[in-house]
């Protein structure tokens, strides 16, 4: 795991619990979530149609697409409810000095 792939997203207080922020980096969009047990990150675009998940609903460990209600597990990326059937890519997250970092491959 090389250090240079950890990208700083923002401070830990920039996300409310059970919510997310969008993070753009080099033409890619990510969503970073604060759940009850920590921070998580996924791709920021729904696998069903090209819609930003930043406007979606976070509930329990799930993110629901705002356009067609496809649901994904935030921790595993698993597509849980149609029309989404392709899993969402997830990324490792770490917190260091109240800053959130995600590891982009």
């Amino acid at each position, binding site marked *: 795991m090389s250090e240079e792939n950890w990208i700083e997203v923002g401070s830990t207080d920039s996300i409310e619990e*059970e919510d997310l922020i969008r993070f753009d980096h080099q033409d890619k969009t990510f969503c970073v979530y604060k759940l009850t047990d920590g921070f998580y990150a996924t791709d920021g675009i729904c696998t069903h*149609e090209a*819609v*930003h998940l*930043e*406007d*979606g*609903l976070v509930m329990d460990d799930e993110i*629901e*697409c*705002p*356009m*067609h*209600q496809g649901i994904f597990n935030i921790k595993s990326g698993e597509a849980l409810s*149609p*029309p989404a059937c392709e899993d969402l890519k997830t990324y490792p997250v770490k917190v260091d000095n109240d800053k959130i970092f995600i590891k982009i491959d």
Partner: protein
Amino acid sequence: MKNNIVILGGGQAGIYAAREIRQNDSKSNIKILGEENLLPYERPPLSKDFLLDKKKEEDLYFHSSDVLKNENIEFENISINKVDFENKKLFAKNDNVYSYDSLLISTGSENKKLTLDNNLKNDIYYLRNLEEAKKIKEIVSNKNKITIIGGGFIGLEIASSLSQLQKKVIVIEIGNQLMGRIIPKQIADLVQNTHIEHGNEIILNKQIEKITKKNGDYEILLNDNSLIETDFIIVGIGSTPTVKLFENTNLKLDNGIVTNQFCETSIKDVFAAGDVSNFYHPFYERNMRLESYQHAQNHGICAGKNIAGVKTEYTSIPWMWSDQFNLNLQLTGICDEYDEIIKRGNDINNGVIYFFLKNNKIRGACGVGIIGKVGRDIRITSKLTEKDTIVDKQILSDQNLKLNKLIQK
């Protein structure tokens, strides 16, 4: 016990039912009989991304043939022309006979047709299935001025797609607003503005008197004597449940096949799901028939559970969407039973939602906004509706206050 389960209708409700049955019953034979020689596919993209060439035919299928094979679900392309409920048999046009222990009817719905002179029938196009979408896509590539009769979801989605293909589009609607059957006028007017901004012409309150073919083009005479010249005509004026096969049987019909909250029809071991079913909704305490993606899916799943012996009430709060230009319109619940309307938001860039309340509880809501802007709030609204929550109207009406505050209380 091993049963023969037959699913009549190879659409979305049918495939979701089949897979749900298999989840609960590993032994029974499951056979889907479909009229189209295609595995079940998604219809919403036909009027949008398929016409715009953003999605191809292979992107539309719900599941590959491998998935069906792995789950031991048979699919057969066959047209049934007689049903014998007493002896539990279906008869096909080619003399095949199918016996069932349990039958699911998921025949869907079909387009209402414009009444026209017979000699014009081949000139008018409708859009429901892939074949029709392919035809329209091919023909419009050589047309410029296209008229759409009917200002409902399908007509407006086609209008949006054709406008994006640089066509001149005219929409003629008989009612005094677009999408009048289920969308509140306040929202319909916002959508109408967007069509006009993109150059589409919207004509309301007009009926078609006559269509005349002239040198390969058409003249449409309206009831105010105005005349529209056009190269191509597409009609989307609603649909009716596909029940012709059952008209002279004991199956109870009334705007579709009447079912209870368990997807059961008036005949034992016969179930119905999706567009064809006029089902009892326990939350709204009334029967309704819905034509939507979410309903076809969830009702199919519910029927599948009940067929497999897992008694399950259908309680999904209705939800549907339409995408036109860069707008996403969503509706949840029902918007025709209310004593108060509350508006949230003022412009489509951030989303506008109208909530329909009765006794301080939400019965339904409808919103429209730039893609992504109303989905979260509409989803929370579905949950508030389902939970029969008495809502804080201040939070509903103020877009700066998050709606999930209401759900967490």
